[in-house]
């Protein structure tokens, strides 16, 4: 064995390097945020929120993209939210210890990390090809499939923290399962379920790849869900790769909006959870 001095030196070196790595991670986050602020803030005028996307040089905004994103996220949540909460409840209550339950939990874990672009291809095959066109509905459904695993996982984890005694007490009073779940377990795990929904919104807001083949994007104002629909990530993708300076500037403004929104949702969800425990 090496001398004590050598071992101490090694220990100190590793500690310094590890601390350096942690600092590096924080610096990288700061670097990304500063880049976004530096390039996005100058372009973030009022017209970004009041004008729709326009050809280069005509002072276009991102209004249709922002509204499109909000509509598609809302529909994705309206579809994926209940399914996710119910499936998460199933895993924590009825499916516990059953084969179907563990299989569903396994599948959900895979879906949580599966490439999101494949969900886009799936919806493309399922809806866009048979119904003859890209649509806001297809985009919303693709996002719904992406939010389901997030909500399932958080709901299950949070319900598992609810003491069994609470459920037993409710059942002992003669309450049917729907009452036990809705009035006791869901209520006890409320903060956790809300956290899951916030994280799901954050995920849906930033996803680009699955929308490429489903809602496609739309450069004019449209809230018709049966037609191609604009979204913030797609607009950013389109504009960032363009040769026009004002489009690239708009892309940075959109990137700043999305990132701030997503990070705020993440921090808020952590605060909601921390406060409830």
């Amino acid at each position, binding site marked *: 064995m090496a001398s004590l001095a050598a071992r101490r030196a090694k220990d100190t070196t590793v500690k310094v390097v590890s601390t350096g790595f942690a600092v590096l991670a924080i610096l990288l986050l700061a670097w990304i945020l500063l880049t976004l602020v530096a390039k996005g803030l100058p372009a973030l005028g009022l017209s970004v929120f009041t004008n729709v996307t326009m050809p280069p040089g005509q002072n276009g905004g991102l209004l249709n993209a922002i509204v499109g994103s909000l509509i598609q996220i809302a529909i994705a949540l309206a579809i994926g939210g209940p399914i996710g909460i119910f499936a998460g*409840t199933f895993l924590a209550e009825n499916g516990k210890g059953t084969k179907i339950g563990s299989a569903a939990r396994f599948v959900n874990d895979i879906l949580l*990390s599966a*490439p999101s672009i494949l969900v886009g291809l799936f919806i493309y095959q399922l809806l866009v090809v048979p119904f003859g066109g890209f649509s806001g509905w297809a985009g919303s459904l693709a996002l719904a499939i992406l939010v389901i695993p997030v909500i399932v996982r958080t709901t299950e984890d949070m319900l598992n923290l609810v003491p069994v005694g609470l459920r037993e007490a409710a059942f002992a009073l003669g309450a049917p*399962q729907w009452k036990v779940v809705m009035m006791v377990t869901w209520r006890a795990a409320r903060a956790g379920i809300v956290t899951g929904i916030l994280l799901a919104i954050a995920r849906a807001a930033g996803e*680009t*790849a699955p929308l490429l083949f489903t809602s496609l994007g739309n450069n004019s104002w449209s809230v018709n869900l049966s037609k191609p629909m604009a979204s913030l990530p797609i607009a950013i993708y389109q504009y960032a790769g363009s040769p026009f300076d004002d489009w690239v500037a708009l892309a940075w403004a959109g990137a700043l909006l999305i990132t701030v929104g997503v990070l705020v949702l993440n921090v808020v969800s952590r605060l909601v959870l921390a406060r409830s425990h």
Partner: protein
Amino acid sequence: MDATIDSSGATGRIPIHQAKSIGGLSDPLFVGALWASGIFVLILLGLIIAQLFLGGLPALQEFGLDFLWTASWNPVTEKYGALVMIYGTLFSAVIAVVVALPLSFGIAFFLTEIAPQPLKRPIGVAVQLLAAVPSIIYGMWGFFVIAPLMAAYVQPPLIDLLGPIPVLGALFQGPPLGSGMFTAGLILAVMIVPFITAMFVETLESVPPMLKESAYGVGCTTFEVYRNVSVPYGRTAMVGAVMLGLGRALGETMAVTFVIGNATRLSASLFAPGATIASTIANEFPEAPIGSLKLTSLLQLGFILFVISFIVLALSRALVRSRLD
């Protein structure tokens, strides 16, 4: 419930046959909805795989299994093969894991052993926020900020220094474009570090304090305890964590599409432009009309990506669960 009590009459007692039906129709409906949602999640994965397989079937019929090891991707001659993309997907993901692994080990060591208690949570959250930044933002940052830096300051000295070395030099050939495999791998590394670190920390915190204290008791340094007690104890789950990072890196689309250069030819060099399965699908899709051989080839690529991701993620989960259960 109220209705049942009312019908029980003045005595206030509920006859047992009525008490049984307290839930009425609502309970079977509710429980049925729970089961249906669980089963829906279960079959969702199967539906996705089936759709991708069926969509890619015409390409499979046209090219057979040769599709897997054909290197050409030529829309003019309608000859498509997946080799370049499979290679690019694996190569960029492996670079990501190789870079992310020491970082994650270090950050996890810092968070579990070094960080003062009040700093632990904020720093941990900051690292986790790196995972929350959307993929497309990494793409823009990589394209506009990192790639120019790589082209100006990182790649030229590496090419000059390591390029002439035999064998190893093959990794450092070509012009310093900025974009390419290496840049894509680095960006992917930043994106997967939070996932790997979080699971490392979770595993390391489950090491029984007694084990660590015994090691400290015989005079081990902090690093020696980490290296010889904590890490070996959590080894299986930590390998699982790395697999999860790999799985995430394999399917990442937008960040890679911006910085990999999108060239459908094979090169051993780290700095050469390439393509991954996901970036190819994102890039080529707009020029692939419904019913074209190109579209079915892209769907076939998607199917291959799903199979690769599924294997890696399933393995990861098996390893992580085997420790936690």
